[in-house]
C-alpha cells in the first residue's frame, strides 16, 4: 500500500517510475501470495474453501495505491488482493489461511473472513453483496465523526443482482457519503456468466440510476485503474458523495480452488491470460528502463514461500480459544 496522501496522490496521473514500480510490486505480491496459497491448498495444507483472484490484481493494486492507512475498505469472498494492497501482512494472512495461531482472526475466519482493522481493512465477506451496507455505514460513521477518511467497497459483478446493491447505492448518494464503490467485473459469478443473469445495460447504468456516477476502465490496465481511482477518490474526498469505479477484468481460475474450471471456454481463458495486468505493466516498465523487476518477482516468491513455510510450521490455536470473542456479556465458558 502506498502511504502517500494529498499531493503525491495527484501525481498518480503522472505515473512516475517509482509509483509504477510500486504498483507492479503490489500486483506481483498478490499473484505470488495466491499462487502459493493454491499450491498449499492442493497440498492439503490449507483447509476449507479458497477463492483466488489471479488475473484481477490490477484492480486491488490500482485502487489501494490511492488510499491512506486511515481509509477503510470492505471486501468480498475473493479478498486476498484487497487486503494485501491495503497493507495487511502476508505472513499473518497465511497464518489465517492455515488456521494457525497468530493469523489475523486467530484461525476463526480463514480465507473468506480476513480482516485487518489496524490498516483499515474491515473484512472479507462470505455473503455476496454483504460488504455494501457495511461500507456505506462505515462511510456514514466516518462522516459523522468528521474524519477525513473514505471507504472503498470492493464487490464482484455477481453482487449487482442482490437487493442491497440498490439500497446501498441509493443510501450513499442520498447522504453524500465518502465511499468509492469498486465493481470488479470478471464476467462470472461462481460458475455462471454474469451476462446470462443480468438484464439491462449494465452496472454503470444501475449506479447512475441510483445517483452514483463514475468511470468504467480496463481493470487489467493498472495505470488506468490508478488514474481513475485517483480522480474518483478526489471527488469523494472533496465531499462530492459516492462514486463508482467499474473495472473490467478476468479471473483465470475456477470459482474455488477445488473447481478445475473445466467449464470455461479455453479460448476465453487464453485471451484473459493474454491480458494479464502484471505482464502488461512489466512490458511498460521494461520499456521505460526499470531494472529491478526480476528482483521484485524473486522477492515476492521468496516472501510467500517463507510465509507458507512459517504458517505450515506454526502452532494451531489452543482449542479453548474457540470460546473467545463471541461477546462480553453472556459468553459461554470453556468447560
Amino acid at each position, binding site marked *: 500500500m502506498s502511504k502517500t496522501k494529498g499531493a503525491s496522490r495527484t501525481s498518480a496521473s503522472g505515473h512516475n517510475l517509482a509509483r509504477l514500480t510500486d504498483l507492479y510490486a503490489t500486483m506481483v505480491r498478490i499473484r505470488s501470495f495466491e499462487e502459493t496459497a493454491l499450491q498449499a491448498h492442493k497440498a492439503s495444507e490449507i483447509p476449507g474453501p479458497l477463492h483466488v483472484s489471479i488475473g484481477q490484481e490490477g484492480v486491488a493494486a490500482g485502487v489501494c495505491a490511492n488510499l491512506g492507512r486511515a481509509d*477503510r475498505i*470492505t471486501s468480498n469472498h475473493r479478498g486476498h488482493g484487497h487486503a494485501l494492497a491495503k497493507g495487511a501482512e502476508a505472513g499473518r494472512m497465511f497464518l489465517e489461511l492455515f488456521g494457525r495461531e497468530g*493469523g*489475523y*482472526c*486467530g*484461525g*476463526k*475466519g480463514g480465507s473468506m*473472513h480476513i*480482516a*485487518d*482493522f489496524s490498516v483499515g481493512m*474491515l*473484512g472479507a*465477506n*462470505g*455473503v455476496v453483496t*454483504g460488504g*455494501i*451496507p*457495511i*461500507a*456505506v*455505514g*462505515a*462511510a*456514514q*460513521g*466516518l*462522516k*459523522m*465523526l468528521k*474524519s477525513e477518511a473514505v471507504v472503498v467497497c470492493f464487490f464482484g459483478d455477481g453482487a449487482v443482482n442482490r*437487493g*442491497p446493491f440498490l*439500497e*446501498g447505492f*441509493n*443510501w450513499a448518494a*442520498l*447522504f453524500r457519503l465518502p465511499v468509492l464503490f469498486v465493481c470488479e467485473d470478471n464476467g462470472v459469478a461462481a460458475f455462471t456468466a454474469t451476462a446470462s443473469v443480468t438484464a439491462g445495460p449494465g452496472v454503470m447504468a444501475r449506479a447512475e440510476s441510483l445517483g452514483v456516477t463514475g468511470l468504467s476502465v480496463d481493470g487489467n490496465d493498472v495505470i488506468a485503474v490508478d488514474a481513475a481511482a485517483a480522480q474518483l477518490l478526489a471527488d469523494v474526498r472533496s465531499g462530492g458523495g459516492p462514486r463508482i469505479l467499474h473495472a473490467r477484468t478476468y479471473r483465470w481460475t475456477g470459482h474455488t480452488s477445488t473447481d478445475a474450471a473445466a467449464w470455461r471456454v479455453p479460448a476465453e481463458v487464453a485471451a484473459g491470460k493474454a491480458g494479464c495486468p502484471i505482464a502488461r505493466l512489466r512490458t511498460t516498465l521494461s520499456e521505460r528502463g526499470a531494472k529491478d523487476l526480476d528482483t521484485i518477482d524473486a522477492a515476492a516468491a521468496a516472501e510467500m514461500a517463507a510465509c507458507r513455510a512459517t504458517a505450515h510450521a506454526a502452532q494451531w490455536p489452543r482449542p479453548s480459544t474457540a470460546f*473467545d*470473542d*463471541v*461477546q*462480553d*456479556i*453472556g459468553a459461554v465458558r470453556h468447560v
Partner: protein
Amino acid sequence: MSKADATIEVTLVDAGRLAVQQEMRRDPTVWVLGEDVARGGLWGQYRGFLEEFGPERVVSTPISESTIMGAGLGAALVGTRPIIEMRIFDFVMCAMDELVNQIAKIRYMFGGQARPAVVVRMPHGMWRNSAAQHSQMLESWFVHLPGVIVVAPSCAEDEAGLMVSAIRSDDPVLFFDPKDLWPLTGTMPAGEIAPIPFGKARRLREGKDLTIVTWSAIVPKVSEAAASLAEQGVHADVLDLRTLWPWDEAAVLASVAKTKRLLVVHEAVEVGGFGGEIVARVIDQLGPSNVKIAKRLGAPRLPIPFSPPLENQIRVTVDKIVAAGLAAARA
C-alpha cells in the same frame, strides 16, 4: 419524600425516549437511524430528537431494512454507537443477513477485531389487530444465535434502565420493545437513569407454591393472574426475566428448588419458544426428581389472525394463566 427518593411517572415509550436521550447527551457517538425517526419515530420514541441532536444523529432513512441494519453495523466498525430502529420486528426479516450473518458473527469471525456495538430496536408482539405480518414474537430465535444479547423489558423502568445498558454495551444488543405496552405507565426514580444489568430477573411477587417465569408484553397479565391465584390461596413466585440472553438461571433454579413447580408463560408460540429452554435447563440442573411439575403456556402454533375474536382465541389470557397456575399448583 427526600429529593433522592423522588420518582416520576412515565409511559413505557417515554421511559425509552428519556433513556436514549440521556445517553445521546452523554456520548456524542450515539445516534439513531431508521424510518421516520427524525419525525419522532412511529410512536414518539424519538420525539424532539431532531431538534436537539440534528439530522446527522437522528437519521430518517429510506425503506431499506437491509441497509438500515448493515449500515448501522458499518458505522459501529468505525467507532460510532448506532441505535438501529427497525420500526416493527416483523420487518427485521428483511435484514436478517445483516443481523444474523454479519452483526452476530463479525467479532468472532475476525478474531475479536470488530466491536459491533449496536442496539437493534425491534418493537414486537401482538398489537391491536395488526394480523400476521405485524404481530410476531420470535425472540427465542435469538437466544439460539451466538454473539448477541437479547433484551425484552415489560415495564417503563426496565425499558429505561435496560436501554441505558444496551447503549453502553460493546456487544450487539437486540432490544425488543413490547409495542402493545407503549402507553403503560410506570414509576421510576427521577434524575439520572441507572443502567440495569443484563441477566438479572425482577421478582414481581414472592411465593412458595409455584414459580412463574415470564417476560415482555405478557407480564402485566401474569401479574394480574398471580394476584388472582393468591386470592385462591396459590402463592406464586413470579420472575420477569427481562433479558433472555443472558438469562437469570440462578434465580429461576433457586425459585424452583423452593417451589418444585415451574410454569413458564410467554406470548410467543409455545412450540419452540424459550420456555422449552428454561424447562430443559431446570430439569437438567435440578434433576427431574426434584421437580414436581414443569409446564409452559404460550400461543398455539398459529400465525396471528386479524379478527378480534380470533386473536383473543389464541392469545394467552389472564384466565388461561390462572388455570395453568392452578393446575400446576395442584398437580
